[in-house]
């Protein structure tokens, strides 16, 4: 651990929690933010501090991703905590919540304990586990929310499976109240989401079976009614369409403890990107119509959608080198989360502070983590990036063990030059001369 004090000067400091942007410096000591603002200079920093010139780049809280699939334990050929954390660090993501559908699944406190230790020993960013909502991710019996939470589980979800039994969901939301646990659901009705892409004209032309928006809205509507019945804290992992935005908006207006996320893919791509059956764009929820993309972008800008997730889902070559209908869902996304998100900022669809809030301050608030803000005493988890620097994504530059990126060869803007976790530099890329 690099525990020497750090001073990052000449930075554009953005605190998405307060919305404040100012030019200045930020000092780090003992893994915490010691001081920050326009008035700080080298004189205020203890001897031995490393001084870094940010050259006007943005310094913001490190990103927090609530949804990443990692193959450890059980599928280490797809991704390990170490490889995922390297991808995260290169993308400015300093906290990653890992999904519980490992082998064995994370439905036992011992597995949580294993993951915490493995992450401590092998990962360069904070890798925190989410636990299964039901035993074996079977959707039948709830897991030990109390003991799993004490072991370190951040929230409870069956990951890519939806809990479709309403009674199980009702009891889980009720029981979760006693531990103030957060219940996270993949809002896709299993029966209605039997297709392989967004239902509509394009699917019909391609001869692919469709997934109607109702696969999402029915599950979301039902869950929100159960949240109202029980008073539990409920978070819809990813919504993808305009109708879902309206459902969440109404729930929030009526004062329910309901929040939701959106995948970076749903914000920046639409069904037309599938083109000639590009299997890396087979996702759940599926990429939808451009009208839906615009609706979720507007909802994020407005605050109806709380968080943006990478939905990082490494799939090996065998799982993706198949005809579209037969290949696995999922695309990796940790390393490209920020630069893909910046597309929205460059297109004028939302402010930089709003985007950053959705990938730092808001997820931190949801998980009650002290990260996600630039304040004295907060953990020094930071990202330093040039939001304008252009590049073409070369899959060879990705740190993930799998290369199934939806942005293969895409032109992107926004390069992460430094990632810092607890005051320690975990990724560094010098600006090009």
């Amino acid at each position, binding site marked *: 651990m690099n525990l020497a004090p750090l001073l990052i000067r000449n930075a554009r400091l953005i605190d998405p929690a307060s919305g404040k942007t100012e030019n200045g410096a930020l000092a780090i000591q003992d893994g915490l933010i010691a001081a920050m603002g326009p008035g700080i200079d080298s004189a205020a920093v203890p001897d031995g501090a490393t001084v870094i010139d940010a050259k006007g780049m943005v310094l913001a809280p490190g990103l927090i991703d609530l949804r990443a699939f990692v193959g450890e334990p059980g599928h280490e050929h797809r991704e390990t905590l170490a490889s995922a954390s390297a991808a995260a660090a290169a993308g400015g993501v300093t906290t990653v919540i890992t999904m519980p559908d490992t082998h064995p699944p994370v439905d036992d406190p011992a597995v949580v304990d294993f993951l915490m230790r493995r992450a401590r020993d092998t990962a360069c960013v904070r890798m925190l586990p989410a636990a299964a909502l039901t035993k074996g991710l079977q959707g039948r019996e709830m897991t030990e929310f109390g003991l799993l939470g004490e072991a370190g589980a951040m929230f409870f979800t069956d990951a890519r499976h939806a809990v479709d039994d309403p009674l199980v969901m009702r009891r889980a939301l009720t029981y979760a109240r006693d531990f103030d646990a957060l219940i996270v659901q993949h809002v896709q009705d299993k029966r209605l989401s039997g297709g392989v892409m967004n239902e*509509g*004209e394009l*699917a*019909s032309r391609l*001869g*692919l*079976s*469709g997934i109607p928006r109702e696969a999402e809205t029915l599950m979301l509507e039902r869950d929100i009614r159960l949240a109202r019945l029980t008073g539990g804290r409920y978070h819809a992992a990813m919504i993808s369409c305009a109708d879902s935005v309206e459902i969440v908006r109404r729930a929030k207006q009526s004062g329910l403890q309901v929040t939701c996320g959106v995948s970076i893919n749903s914000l920046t791509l639409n069904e037309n990107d599938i083109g000639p059956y590009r299997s890396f764009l087979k996702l759940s929820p599926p990429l939808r119509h451009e009208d839906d993309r615009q609706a979720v972008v507007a909802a994020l800008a407005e605050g109806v959608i709380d968080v943006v997730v990478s939905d990082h889902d490494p799939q090996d070559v065998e799982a993706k080198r198949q*005809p579209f*209908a037969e290949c696995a869902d999922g695309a990796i996304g940790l390393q490209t989360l920020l630069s893909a998100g910046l597309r929205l900022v460059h297109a004028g669809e939302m402010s930089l502070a709003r985007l950053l809030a959705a990938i730092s301050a808001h997820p931190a608030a949801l998980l009650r983590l002290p990260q996600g803000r630039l304040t004295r005493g907060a953990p020094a988890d930071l990202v330093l990036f040039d939001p304008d620097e252009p590049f073409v994504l070369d899959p060879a530059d990705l740190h993930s063990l799998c290369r199934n990126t939806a942005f293969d060869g895409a032109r992107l803007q926004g390069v992460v030059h430094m990632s810092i976790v607890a005051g320690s530099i975990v990724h560094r890329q010098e600006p090009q001369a």
Partner: protein
Amino acid sequence: MTHAVRFPHRHLLGIEGLSPSDITMLLDLADKAVEVSRQVEKKKTTLRGRTQINLFFEASTRTQSSFELAGKRLGADVMNMAVASSSIKKGETLIDTAMTLNAMRPDLIVVRHHAAGAVHLLARKVDCSVINAGDGAHEHPTQALLDALTIRRNKGQIRGLIVAICGDILHSRVARSNLILLNALGAEVRVVGPSTLLPSGLERMGCKVFTSMRDGLKDADIVMMLRLQRERMNGSFVPSVKEYFHYYGLDSGKLAYAKPDALVMHPGPMNRGVEIASDIADGAQSLIREQVEMGVAVRMAILEALAAHLPNGG
């Protein structure tokens, strides 16, 4: 080849992407192939020395034998890959199969696969010409071409005709390819079927959509029936065979809604008594057997057209 117009594509992956003149050129070539097939000496030398592989991941009697005969009549060596007994059953991926076959240096591969887009995927991985013999619910271009040839030979032209495509549109690659082709050649296309068997967005694909045979067949010149798969008959998409035949099965009563000289088509294999009554299938207005003959001719035409693109071809 001696034709002035060259077919400007290396593969035939679908009707989508073909221009009206591409289609007309293929139909003209096919007319000549019909003559060849009706001679005692049916053999040409266009594909002499060429290797054609028929790679069928889905069982097919008529399409596979039609392609086999077409290749042989043009002088090609034709190999049928029996997928059921091959390594594909042992878990080899489609791409590995493609690359393995590619290494054997075939000139033409004819592919049928149960997944939409599979033939596109395969075409990207091989050096030879690829013909789509049906991919999932996406396209079946040679079926649409043979249907068009059959119609043109019986009605003189396609422009201005009213063609009603009836039945399971949702799962039908035949319907999709026909929709695109018939639109390109200026027919008025209608589709008729129960709403559970109509894909969404259909009305934006260049056709009028009907759920009643009476309305859909009114004044039609051509009635094209589609096969309804057995597993879709019992409560999943339609409640029963009995009810389906009552509302959508083509019998003499329903055919009477169409023009008196309307002609009946079916891509086969037929479910007699499900989508079509036996007396209609075998009746005077039926073109079903002629479609099979035209199938060989159209496949000869596309093989010839693609041969011009083969190394040292044309």
